[in-house]
């Protein structure tokens, strides 16, 4: 019929309005805030040439700074992996007075300016501080050593682990654990074979974010670390020092290495998560 021939083409209408506008705004914002600065950093690094780049990042002081940063971040992440998981477990699984307060306190490291955290940690752990006195007597020095750096990193990054594991643990179907109980599994077997596999992807994601955050932490560390080159100088601080010396190339090269670490880490974490969640393939 002729009516069919002249009928306008059918276009599916989107249910949610504003797709173009919201996507456009998001892309613009992301470009301005994230993409352009990162691109500028990469361009800055590229303009100095590979030889100069290598010379900067392989200088003994820079290598030492990378080593210290990575070691401290790794230790802090291991501590937070254990403690953060425990904390999430306690917050989800048990009812006790003050639970909500404890839950809210978990966000303090997010909210507190890191410099404030650094200052108070320094005050506590310095030779005449509350903890420092005791530790000093036992022959352990925290302030101005790598342990100070670990402490500051652990403080600022623990919420990442707790807050990623917590919702997944909350969503875990209690029937799974009941099923394991009826099949004769003890508490340890239930945790290792039923609960842990379920929360593993989230746990790894949390640990990776915590590690990445530790690599870049600056404010809390500079107060407690003492910042002795080759001993307690972190990479972010070295980049800052280079900047203060108007050595933009030096700063950019070190920053690029940190960026590289973070990207490799994110990639590795995503692959691991993909692997850990492989059973979800084809799931409705």
């Amino acid at each position, binding site marked *: 019929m002729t009516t069919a021939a002249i009928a306008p083409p059918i276009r599916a209408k989107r249910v949610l309005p504003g797709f173009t506008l919201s996507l456009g705004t998001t892309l613009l914002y992301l470009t301005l805030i994230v993409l352009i600065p990162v691109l500028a950093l990469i361009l800055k690094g590229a303009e100095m040439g590979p030889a100069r780049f290598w010379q900067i990042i392989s200088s003994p002081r820079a290598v030492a700074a990378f080593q210290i940063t990575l070691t401290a971040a790794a230790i802090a992440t291991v501590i937070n992996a254990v403690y953060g998981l425990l904390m999430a477990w306690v917050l989800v699984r048990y009812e006790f007075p003050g639970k909500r307060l404890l839950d809210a306190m978990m966000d303090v490291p997010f909210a507190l300016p890191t410099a404030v955290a650094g200052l108070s940690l320094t005050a506590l752990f310095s030779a005449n501080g509350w903890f420092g006195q005791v530790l000093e007597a036992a022959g352990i020095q925290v302030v101005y050593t790598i342990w100070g750096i670990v402490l500051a990193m652990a403080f600022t990054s623990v919420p990442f682990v707790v807050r990623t594991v917590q919702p997944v643990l909350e969503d875990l*179907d209690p*029937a*799974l654990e*009941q*099923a*394991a*109980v*009826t*099949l*004769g*599994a*003890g508490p340890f*077997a239930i945790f290792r*074979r*039923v609960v842990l*596999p*379920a929360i593993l992807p989230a746990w790894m994601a949390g640990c990776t974010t915590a590690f990445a955050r530790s690599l870049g932490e600056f404010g809390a560390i500079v107060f407690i670390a003492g910042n002795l080159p080759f001993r307690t100088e972190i990479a972010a601080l070295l980049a800052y020092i280079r900047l203060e010396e108007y050595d933009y190339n030096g700063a950019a090269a070190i920053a690029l290495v940190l960026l590289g670490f973070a990207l490799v880490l994110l990639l590795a974490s995503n692959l691991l998560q993909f692997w850990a969640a492989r*059973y*979800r*393939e*084809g*799931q*409705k």
Partner: protein
Amino acid sequence: MSIAISGLTKRFGQTDVLCGVDLEVSKGELVALLGPSGSGKTTLLKIIAGLEWPDAGRLAVNDQNWLQLAAQDRRIGFVFQHYALFPHMRVRDNIAFGLSVRPRSERPGKAVIAAKVDEMLHFLQITHLADRFPGQLSGGQRQRVALGRALAIEPAVLLLDEPFGALDAAIRRDLRRWLRGVHDATGSTTIFVTHDQEEAFELADRVVVMGEGRIEQIGHADAIHDHPATPFVARFMGATVEFPVTLNSGRAEASGLDISALPRRALPDGPARLFARPEDITLIPDAGAPWRIASRISNGAHLRFVLSHPALGEAEADVPRRTANADALTPDAAVRLRIEAGTIFPAERGIATTSVRSPGFEPVKEKSR
């Protein structure tokens, strides 16, 4: 294994979930716990499993006190309403779980476990699913795997919570027959919970009807259908039309009703209640009768009538459409109600005996959680 339960009570906060349950299940029996939501049937099942604990009472299996025994040590097979398969394990590993978590000293070797799993897969006819993850299975397939996982530990007692609740009608019927076969082949003592009468009667040796934390009646399909022990069972079994009647030396009488088809009841004279199913009511045109046809709806096979009485209110009746006098049953016609089958109970305290109640009670379909 024989199960003996007595005086079991359980409270959740202010609510009595179980108020004194006594039940005996003999070895190899297949028993259904039937009841609407909130009747305490799932709680009873979970107490037997060791997933809930009663406030008082006794639970003995083969004369062993199970209330002293943790769920881990009871060796029960429990099939959950939504299967609760471990999502990160393949079907094979799900079925092997109960064997592979045993303490090292009691654990069978890897080869023995693998052989047992293969045997189970074969028995349940799911060999082709062995290497899939639960997320890749349909509801009916998951149900089979869940049962396989429970049976692999050779349980003393098999417990199933709404085993077919989340499945399509056709798959339900298939699985029902299949489960009966599995039960007969394993010889285990089996208890399952359901809110579906058809399912309970078709599958079970004995049906336990529960209501509000009590056992209302225990028996076979015919007995429970024809002779409900309590008004609760009568309503649950579909006797949803309730007439106020007067008993006179065992015979019930009421205005506009012909109750002569019912046998005499040994009940004291006075007010009583008659419970009948809409399909057990025959309509006889009678110009002098007080009942009037208020509406008539056909669903093809049956005519559904709403009848009204000036004093008693409304009642429902279902009549086959090809019945002889169907044409005479038009709206506004005066009719007499002949009750072909029904049960009479003494008037309940607190319930008005002066009006018809219809449809008073519909078995509540349990919502899937």
